[in-house]
């Protein structure tokens, strides 16, 4: 899950003073003068204005030397006409690097400032980050699902295993030759083997993974995008149960031209998807003439943190089979479970049924379970031969860096370490989860039942003035700017019920929790 840092839209708003503004300052009073008075003033002002515009025209259309050399005298008049045409079209706004040459329409939509509260909150929190000693009045970041609880374990492993260098850490002597050259773009087989073992381990060994069905990518973000490119054409759609991770809107749609159709889940079902809702969404899409190519599920889910029960997974499978569509199962939090429920992977369900596996694709990565988002390690696991081949070729645009691959071959192959790490991580997540949720409970804020992830899904509808998205955003704003905590509002996740907020707690230490709760309490009081 990547997030933008310094708000690019701010630098864009510091645009140079447009020549147009200056022009308007002349024209508007001039118009008034022409209409109201005329005569003397007309005689003096209009020439000045004309002179000004003539200067502007000359300045903009002074062509580089070599151009004028290429224009023969006989062509000059037609060229002048050409210049005049372009001047009437010319953009009077800033010159320089926001120039006249156009970017694609795809790019134009991406260049727009981020207006989702998800991104705005992240930006604000990063500008004024809370620090217990240096910035106690800063914004406490509860909007980033990052896990900082277990770095001590990894650092210990590194100090014991790394020797002097990450290069050649596969046991050989320091040699760049082995890792510097072109590697298979879809990842080293050694890493695929180690990853398959790791995935199986975190899923309780209930399922085994075949390295030869794996494509490695620089993060789960490209893994998901590559699958979209393989499974759908522009204009096609995926059904996505809500609430869902805000990043999907960007990651799955930007360049693929694919549509995401929300399938609303309700608190009454603990936000577990129902077949009825799936069916409805599918039929509505069909009526609109939109072709649904697949369902994207997140299991464990983000932002709710619940696990999909076996029965639900089977229902989704049957549905996909019936409609002849794909299933993408994003299981990136599979190793971060802490509740009593068991995690069941989509791959596990397949083992026991006679299903057409070619419609099933998993996404995984090390950004969450192993807390290594910076290293960019993602996995596409597909049972479809053609998708595997296409993904293998497409991942040339998003391959994992070789030194990182070798480091992870070492780390993931150390199964004693990985087992201890996963166990400890789960324990620590549960501890902080329990404290955090209890703290919210004491404020009268209940959370949805969750057994995984780095966050809880809190119901703050009791604190909002109007039971609507507007009311929810008002509360979000208060929490961000008054209480100075950044949480993610449900509307950013397309939640149909207002008032739900995702609160991540794995970047907190236990001492921070009372501070968070106190800040929320203060705001809660103003809402009663």
């Amino acid at each position, binding site marked *: 899950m990547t*997030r933008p840092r310094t708000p690019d839209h701010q630098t864009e708003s510091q645009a140079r003073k447009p020549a147009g503004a200056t022009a308007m300052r002349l024209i508007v009073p001039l118009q008034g003068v022409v209409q109201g008075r005329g005569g003397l003033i007309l005689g003096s002002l209009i020439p000045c204005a004309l002179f000004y515009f003539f200067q502007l025209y000359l300045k903009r259309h002074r062509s580089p030397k*070599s151009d004028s050399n290429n224009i023969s005298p006989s062509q000059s008049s037609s060229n002048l006409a050409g210049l005049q045409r372009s001047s009437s079209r010319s953009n009077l706004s800033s010159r320089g690097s926001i120039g006249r040459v156009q970017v694609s329409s795809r790019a134009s939509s991406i260049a727009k400032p981020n207006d989702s509260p998800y991104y705005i909150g992240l930006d604000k929190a990063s500008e004024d980050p809370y620090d217990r000693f240096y910035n106690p009045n800063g914004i406490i970041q509860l909007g980033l699902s990052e896990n900082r609880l277990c770095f001590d374990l990894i650092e210990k492993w590194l100090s014991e295993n790394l020797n002097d260098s990450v290069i050649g850490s596969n046991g050989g002597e320091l040699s760049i030759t082995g890792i510097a050259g072109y590697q298979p773009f879809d990842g080293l087989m050694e890493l695929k083997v180690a990853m398959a073992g790791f995935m199986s381990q975190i899923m309780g060994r209930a399922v085994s993974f075949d390295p030869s069905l794996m494509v490695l990518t620089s993060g789960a973000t490209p893994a998901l995008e590559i699958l979209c490119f393989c499974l759908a054409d522009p204009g096609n759609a995926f059904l996505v149960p809500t609430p869902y991770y805000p990043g999907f809107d960007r990651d799955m749609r930007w360049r693929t031209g694919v549509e995401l159709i929300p399938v609303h889940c309700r608190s009454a079902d603990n936000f577990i998807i129902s077949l009825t809702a799936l069916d409805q969404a599918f039929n509505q899409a069909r009526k609109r003439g939109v072709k649904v190519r697949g369902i994207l599920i997140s299991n464990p889910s983000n932002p709710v943190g619940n696990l999909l029960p076996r029965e639900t997974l089977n229902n989704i499978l049957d549905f996909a089979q019936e409609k*002849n569509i794909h299933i993408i199962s994003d299981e990136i939090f599979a190793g971060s479970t802490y509740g009593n429920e068991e995690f069941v992977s989509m791959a596990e369900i397949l083992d026991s049924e006679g299903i057409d596996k070619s419609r099933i694709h998993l996404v995984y990565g090390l950004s969450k379970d192993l807390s290594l988002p*910076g290293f960019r390690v993602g996995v596409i696991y597909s049972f479809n031969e053609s998708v595997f081949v*296409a993904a293998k070729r497409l991942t040339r645009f998003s391959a994992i860096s070789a030194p990182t691959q070798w480091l992870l071959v070492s780390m993931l192959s150390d199964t004693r370490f990985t087992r201890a790490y996963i166990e400890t991580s789960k324990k620590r997540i549960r501890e902080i989860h329990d404290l955090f949720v209890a703290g919210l409970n004491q404020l009268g804020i209940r959370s949805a039942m969750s057994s995984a992830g780095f966050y809880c899904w809190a119901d703050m509808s009791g604190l909002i003035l109007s039971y609507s998205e507007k009311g929810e955003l008002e509360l979000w704003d208060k929490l961000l700017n008054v209480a100075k905590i950044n949480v993610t509002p449900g509307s950013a996740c397309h939640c149909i019920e207002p008032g739900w907020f995702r609160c991540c707690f794995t970047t907190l230490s236990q001492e921070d929790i009372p501070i968070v709760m106190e800040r929320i309490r203060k705001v809660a009081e103003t809402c009663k």
Partner: protein
Amino acid sequence: MGLEIEQPSAVQLSKIAVSETHGEDSPYFAGWKAYDENPYDELKNPSGVIQMGLAENQVSFDLLEGYLEKHSEASSWGKGASGFRENALFQDYHGLQSFRKAMASFMEQIREGRAKFDPERVVLTAGATAANELLTFILADPGEALLVPTPYYPGFDRDLRWRTGVKIVPIHCDSSNNFQITPQALEAAYNDAEARNIKVRGVLITNPSNPLGATIQRSVLEEILDFATRKNIHLVSDEIYSGSVFSSSEFVSISEVLEARQYKESERVHLVYSLSKDLGLPGFRVGTIYSYNDKVVTTARRMSSFTLISSQTQHLLASMLSDKEFTENYIKTNRERLRKRYQMIIEGLRSAGIECLKGNAGLFCWMNLSPLLEKPTREGELALWSSIVHEVKLNISPGSSCHCSEPGWFRVCFANMSEQTLNVALKRIHNFMEQRDRDRNIISSQ
């Protein structure tokens, strides 16, 4: 009577998934297959296929290893706790500032300070492959086109077109003027696109050129920039081989041309660079887009989410590339070694009766075998190529895979092997040519 059970139709895939634009079924890849099945090894398989189709730089690894040995702090995170975890968590698409600064400084050094690079304009991508694709997504919509001079790197057909839906319209160059790009060729390509109702959004040049192994002259760069300005289109300059010019004075970067023009019209210019060739680190996946256009920088940065460089790698390389003493020595030594290799292969080929285009950069030479063609056609070229791959056992790249308008040219890489292996290859070519002469003499004397 058998019971026919209607099989449900297989679940459908996208057009991109089933398209052939990846190009891996082209004859070009048959050479790779031949190599993969029977790779040359000095000791274990001395009669195997020698890989001369891979533009990889292996001549300067010892310099990199030397640096890393002396500076172990680069490849670890130090003793303090914060070093590792901050690095492991760092997934900001701006990239590590220290690394961006290092890249900007390295690019300046390659150009010997003749152009300045602002770290704030450096956008990081996992390789130049990703950088070129990203720029294409940003500069053109599906159905629109980029003009690319021929011959060009075969990978462009895939990288610029596959997912983007953008077309390539070739700018035809030929040997009459050493394959240089002319204003006439530029205009002709543009008009060709217009006639087919295809909107041209930019020109993409590679300087130094792949596969020619030659730098583009300053006057030609000026003409191309003027052309782009006249048509109000973009100019992408892929300068991935800029550090592999044999003599530093012979390379002029588009950035130098812009600086001389005080950056007028610079918002249409974008550079691509990478460490895959000059530093010989393609496995590290380090590429960059350097754009003079704010909107392109912003957009490219956001889009780079799909292709970020591992923060571990950024950290590893940041200190190395900022070490000016190291980089200066590296650039100088690497250049010299490549020049020597180039001399070696040119002389070896010449003594076998084969001429090459006069080159001054890159990891390959552009060899002219047109006199050997039975027929001056693509088929003639591929027939000759096939015998070179299967009989002489050298995987070289046929000009047709680079869309060269003249048959008979081949790209031959020389930096991805030891000197001994290169000598073996040259000997095989020598023998091949001698054999041909003997065969011809026999035929002509009958």
